[in-house]
């Protein structure tokens, strides 16, 4: 079991969700986060240019069984890029971490069954 954490642009959320649903990956957790990577954006407030330290992003957490890691990662990669071939600075990152256990609260099932 793996925990796949993707940090993506806010603008791509719809596209990523649609792609995940199309790939039958529907059990996800979405949250709004802010962070700092290589991307630099300028915002304009009352005519003044402002460069925020922290840029708003969307974090998607998906716990998957090993067989689904590749398809999940592929789907996110394809849908979170803002241009088809190369992508742009700020498109985000995907982290994959080993997942020790997973427990469904309702039934108490453990492991791969519970995902």
């Amino acid at each position, binding site marked *: 079991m793996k925990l796949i954490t993707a940090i993506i642009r806010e603008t791509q959320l719809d596209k990523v969700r649609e792609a995940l649903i199309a790939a039958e990956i529907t059990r996800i957790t979405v949250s*709004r986060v802010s962070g700092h990577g290589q991307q630099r954006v300028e915002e*304009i407030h009352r005519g003044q240019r402002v460069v925020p330290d922290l840029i708003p992003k969307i974090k998607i957490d998906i716990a998957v069984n090993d067989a689904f890691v590749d398809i999940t990662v592929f789907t996110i990669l394809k849908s979170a890029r803002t241009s088809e071939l190369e992508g742009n600075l700020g498109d985000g990152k995907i982290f994959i971490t080993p997942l020790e256990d997973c427990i469904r609260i309702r039934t108490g099932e453990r492991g791969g069954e519970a995902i």
Partner: protein
Amino acid sequence: MLFSGKRLFLFLFMLLAVSSAAFGSEGKPVDSGATAWMLTSTALVLLMVPGLAMFYGGLVRSKNVMGTIMHSYIAMGIISVLWVIAGYSLCFGKNALGGWCGWNNSYFFLKGIDNSIIDAGVPEYVFSMFQSKFAIITPALIAGAFAERVSFRAYCFFIAVWSLLVYDPLCHWVWATDGFIFNLGARGAIDFAGGTVVHISAGVSGLVAALYLGSRRGHPYQVIRPNNLVITMLGAGLLWVGWFGFNAGSSISSGLGTAQALAATQVAAATGALTWVIIEGLHQGKATALGFASGILAGLVAVTPAAGVVQPYGAMCLGIAASGICYTAILIKNRLGYDDSLDAFGIHGVGGIAGALLLVFFIRPSWMTEASALAPGWNIWKQLGVQLTAVSIAILYSAGATLAIVFVVDKIFGFKSSESDEMAGLDRSYHGERAYGMLNPS
């Protein structure tokens, strides 16, 4: 000597000052009571525009809040300017172009009304500014039909052209003393405060535009939920308050007619809201706040054309009928699957039509007596015919003209947002802003 020359001069000067304050240059006295209420009404109707901005702003997703609010606010800018340049003249000038619109050279930039007092004893500036608020809110209402998916620039051009080509002529036909709908039948078509001019025209135009532009991305499969019902409720409350100016102000006086309209307005809003939550409670098991707000609007919309002629009992019936009919209309919309996002047609179009037609059954007897004095044998069925004519003209004209305007604006500017702009949200794409800091996506 009792009066020195200087004192006498001062006395005469003061007399002149007093009389010129009380009488306009055209000799009519200013009715300070009526003027005070019309000034208040003007402010109240203006307050409905931020009210509408909040009502709509709370109903969209969190990425479209500022864009949706700006759809209302920008109308305060664009339409106010247009109104001074040409709008007032197109609406309230003498018949021009065979009665299609009005025109009066002295209304151009309002330059000829600097000293003018209208017959109601109200300075013409007040009347003109009061009417301009109706012109502002009408195109802003349309925005609810195509919320979350139009380009800001195209929207700006759309409301400017729509106001000149749809609102102003309709307003002239219905409210100018030489407008042809104003003079239908015995005492004209009854549209006290804008059932046809404001609500039917906005609702029908919204429907046409929404059908032409198509749905939002993901509609209806993706659940699109309101981001903040608190500001929606606040907006609905402001609309209710502002509607007292809208309806009671439309008497252009401060007297009995004003009071009658005010009472009808309150009763219709309250019964509309109650009816909606009762229907919802029976149908779905829960009385929602959004349902209450929708009922307020349905009741207010339906009583808008009727406020001058119905008594509280009639207003109550209109409120009940409006909520029942609008609730059904929205159920049908969901069946049909078109994307009138915030129910501009479902509430304003349908409620406006219901109010304009059903009001004939509740007209106060004294109105009918006066009508039959003017046209012997006048009865509610004849008046219903007049109402039907006015409603049909408003529907057909606004649908046809809006279709043409949307088509042209779409060809020139691209009315519907690009897919990437729509996904990113109106706030980011057109305004470079965000409404909330860390609110979770919905």
